[in-house]
């Protein structure tokens, strides 16, 4: 049961406040903000209590999304609901930020009114909600040259129009009846998150790949969509299919709306996508990777005679040559107050950030098969052999477009009934580093 829902900016401004049951006063917002800002580092923030009142909150898009409840409710339900609410608002407003929430407050009030009644969650499905929601989203579109580049000379199709612009999926689902004139698109994204620990000897100590197939649908009506996965896709250790390199995952679960009658035979998922974004399938691969990890690091750490710590990092990208990484960032923990650096190319940059006590090395572009190196000289006061222990671990954050670690591919995407020519289908792959740690 939900007493109130409110959304606060990170500075504590009230963006949205809705009271469903009239049990608690509006000062709960202030109480919450005081509590959440007074937390120390080791106190878990998710659930906080003030007298009889419990606050459950999540942070998304730099905002606090808070639910208050007086009864003892299920934390799983509340947290999941808040997460769902954020995706819903993202679907309707296009993006999730303080600005978009401020601009679309009327829409958000309308949504909240339909989603929750008397503190009970009614529905979060866009199929039902689309009948009720009347307000249109307000978006701010910064003028961008990229929009122009999609149109070729004399309106001819350019190569680029075959690739969806990266911002294409960040628009509100409702605007289809507005200016964009029924541009019905469907995006199927395969998103994988890697969490990897590589030991100092280069041995993989831990690998987890969590993957999702997300469908973001802008079509007002779509009866059925068939998503074909690799035929050799197999689940679990024992079951292997096909002859080639198997695409294997350990665990796999599907959205409850997915029909699986053709999955066993042909690896086809059947869904009736509703508007907005949905996770159709989730899977997990742990302990092994079908290919080498995408990045290898060869660190050397020495002391020079001037009492400085020399850190020589050689980073190799083991992806196939055509793939490129978008803006990876390497960070190395150290307590040193000053830094001098030698990087292998001028467009990279490195800096020492005091708040994280780490050296951040930003690389704008890192093609597959390439090797980069950097030499950092760190001034460490009172350098001793123990200071060497304090350096590390190295963390990498990166985003690999058009690449999946597990090798999962989408063979085809078919919509029935066949839509008129205006419908566009996009398949996108991306791999994120959830946590890519290399011990020194």
């Amino acid at each position: 049961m939900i007493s109130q829902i409110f959304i606060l900016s990170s500075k504590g401004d009230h963006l949205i406040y809705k009271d469903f049951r009239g049990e608690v006063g509006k000062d709960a917002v202030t109480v919450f903000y005081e509590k959440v800002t007074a937390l120390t580092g080791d106190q878990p923030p998710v659930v906080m209590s003030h007298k009889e009142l419990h606050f459950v909150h999540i942070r998304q898009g730099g905002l606090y999304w808070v639910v208050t409840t007086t009864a003892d409710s299920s934390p799983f339900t509340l947290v999941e609901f808040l997460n769902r609410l954020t995706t819903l608002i993202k679907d309707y407003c296009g993006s999730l930020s303080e600005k978009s929430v401020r601009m679309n407050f009327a829409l958000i009030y309308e949504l909240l009114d339909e989603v929750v009644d008397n503190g009970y969650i009614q529905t979060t499905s866009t199929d039902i909600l689309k009948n009720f929601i009347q307000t249109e989203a307000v978006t701010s579109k910064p003028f961008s040259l990229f929009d122009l580049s999609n149109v070729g000379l004399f309106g001819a199709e350019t190569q680029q129009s075959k690739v969806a612009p990266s911002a294409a999926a960040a628009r509100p689902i409702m605007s289809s009846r507005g200016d964009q004139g029924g541009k019905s698109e469907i995006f199927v994204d395969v998103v994988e998150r890697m969490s990897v620990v590589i030991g100092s000897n280069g041995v993989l100590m831990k690998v987890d790949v969590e993957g999702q197939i997300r469908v973001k649908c802008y079509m007002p009506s779509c009866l059925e969509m068939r998503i074909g996965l690799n035929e050799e896709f197999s689940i679990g250790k024992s079951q292997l299919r096909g002859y080639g390199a198997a695409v294997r995952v350990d665990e796999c679960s599907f959205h409850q709306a997915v029909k699986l009658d053709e999955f066993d035979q042909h690896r086809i998922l059947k869904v009736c996508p509703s508007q907005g974004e949905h996770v159709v399938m989730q899977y997990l691969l742990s302990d092994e990777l079908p290919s080498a990890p995408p990045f290898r690091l060869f660190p050397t750490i020495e002391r020079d005679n001037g009492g400085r710590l020399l850190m020589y990092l050689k980073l190799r990208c083991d992806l196939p040559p055509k793939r490129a990484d978008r803006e990876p960032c390497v960070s190395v923990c150290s307590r040193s107050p000053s830094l001098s650096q030698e990087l292998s190319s001028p467009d990279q940059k490195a800096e020492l950030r005091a708040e994280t006590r780490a050296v951040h090395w930003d690389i704008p572009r890192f093609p597959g098969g390439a090797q980069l190196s950097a030499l950092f000289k760190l001034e460490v006061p009172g350098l001793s052999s123990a200071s060497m222990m304090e350096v590390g671990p190295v963390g990498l954050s990166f985003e690999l477009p058009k690449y999946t670690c597990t090798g999962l591919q989408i063979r085809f995407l078919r919509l029935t009934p066949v839509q008129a020519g205006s419908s566009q289908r996009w398949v996108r792959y991306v791999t994120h580093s959830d946590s890519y740690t290399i011990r020194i």
Partner: protein
Amino acid sequence: MPYLGGEETVKELRRALSNPHVQGDPLRHRSTVLRVIRVMSQGVDVAGLFSEMVKACATTDVVQKKLVYVFLCSYASLNPELSLLVINTLRKDCQDPNPMVRSLALRNMTNLRLPSLVEYVQQPLTAGLRDRAACVRRVAVLGWAKLHSLQPHADIDAAVVNELYSMLRDNDPVVMVNCLRALEEILKEEGGVAVNKAIAHHLLNRLKECDVWGQCEVLGVLQRYRPHSEEELFDILSLLDPYLLSPSVPVMAATLGLFLSLCCRGLPAVSLAALRRAQAPLLAACGSASPEMKFTALCHVQLLLRSLPGLMGEHYKRFFCGYAEPAYIKQRKMQVLVELVNDDNVGFVLDELKGYCTDVSPDTAQAAISAIGRIGRSYSDQCLEILTGLLGLKQEHITSVVVQTMRDLVWVCPQCSESVCEALEGCEDTLQDSQGRQALLWLLGVHGDRVSSAPYVLEAFVEQVRSEMAAGVKTELLTATMRVFLCRPAETQDTLGRLLHYCIEEEADMNVRDQALLYYRLLHCGIEETRSVLQGRRSDPSLGVLIGRPAEPVSQWARSFNTLEPLRQCNAGAESAPQAAPYHLALDPEPSLDLCDPLNPSQDRQETAAAESVNLLLPGPSAGPLAPGPTAGPPAPGSGGGQLGLSLSPALSPQQFEHLWLGGPQCPHGEPGAREEEEEEECVCVQERMGVSPALQCSPPPQLQAALQRSHIQTMAFTPPHTLPWRVYLYTHTRWGGPAPRGPTLVLGELLYTGGAEDQEGEGEGGERGLRVTAKQRPRDDEAMKGFLQVLSGALHTSSTGSC
């Protein structure tokens, strides 16, 4: 700016709302209403616009209607009379052909929360229950619950309740779930919906039609149902089994909660099986992209582990911390990791935890170190190695936590004390915070006999006691010094004296002062009593070797499963409550112990005066034994007359020394331990061997000199180090404290080390390597001489081990 110009804005908005041009233009009207809501949600009080907004309600524009309702619902309670004006519009809307408008009107009518409007609302609500459109029925059902909460003491309308019960069979699943919710609220006094067999089976059959939220609600209500037979129970369980593996975490949790409540009494084996089955989805939730969901799942994993310790042992890698995870997740994960440790994975887990110890966030580092300490209770060797290594980093916060962890570890695992004592040497310089220093002091006090530098570390602490801020450190220092005094009296006596003096005379904190007085009086009672009070347990007596926790029955925590409770508990509570509290346990005097005197102020003053007057501080009753130590047997009772102290003044010149030394009695050479008494009672010469390591003679003279001076023994002359025979001449004055009948004496001494040569000659001791001490005293006082020899041997012992 909205906060500053609030009143201006309200005025301007009122003008705009009442402007007929604006009212005539739907778009302008809507945007003005929109501005009102925007200003309202920014926190400006716009209650003054109420009547204008009521007028704006009468419109065909649904968006504007919705906006106005948002406004009205916020301010209706402030304007009950004006709200009556809205009711007409709302009731008219309830007849609208568009079901969306009907449901909107009905919902907002009940959301106004005005008791005065109840009579107008009942009729549309009753009609709403039979509406064709499901969305209106959904709203109407919950509307009754809202009405009930407006008048909680009014009689319950039996007809409505019956209607709601029958609507459980409604085609729309949301209506069904809303009926459940409404009935739960209306019948709260009677314990909620009566779940009989028919209703339960109906709900179970319709479960798959509901969406995720509805399923959670239904599963929650079903917890109250008790199946009539075991057969029925198993039917229900097998029906629910697929939901246990639901990809939606809330449904999985609600199902597991239902399983636990259904079979936690009678069938513990089934509930354990359910826990095992739910392990996979729960693990998946622990890896969720949302940190909050991760945290919720982790807290529930901790619950599960209480009944099935080591359940997820093979999945320990899933609980390794990510690089950029928030600190609270990292700490939870470490707590779970500690529970999962087994023989196979302990190496990997420790290796991983070791990596977190140098984390930039001190909280995370601290959590990692204490996690290692917890694992150390089962795998002490590996953990101590890591902890000792961390001390080498010489980082303030790390050292502090490591020492605290070691203290907790030693308390639970006494077998580790050896290695802990070794590791402690030299870490006192890095410790800054009071928690860490308290831990160090506790360890020094309890294991003072094994840490060779203990008295000197304590002395350093005592010297800085004036600048010490934390009272906790002072009390711990008092206890530690007392304890070390009990096992190494000679080296600590003076330190203790100064500390007691300071605490009794100058300390402002009452606790510290009282404790000092307590110890002071305790020493009066005699050394054995002191010992029995202070030398309590060195380890937790309630624990044997601790490997893993015993499994709790599921029923212990089943009630708190899937509630906020597991998330609310702060992480401190669970961890340190029962075991990690060795502080002062042994310290509190037992009530049966007869402290010599009740406290009374006059005696108080007397005693402090006594303490002040002499620099040896333990004036005791005449029966008190003399400076006891591990080497000396307890002296015969009644022989001593107080406590011995040494002092350097008056100083002797080398000439005087030489004169006295040569003029005194001569010891018979080669008969150590023998004692030749001169005719005159005034003078005595004693010769003894001390088993001090020969390394002593390698130590540089200033160091030895300092060590001896600390014990108030003045060195007179040295032979250079590394020469044989090696000699040291020294002297001191002994003084008796308290009302002792004897006066001061002067002791002169010679240390002689001849190397191995003499030993091979085969003397009485059979080749014992050691130092020969010759001491001359005048006037003669056997007890004082014994005391001196003890102090000397203690000082030599420490300085020799210290210099190695």
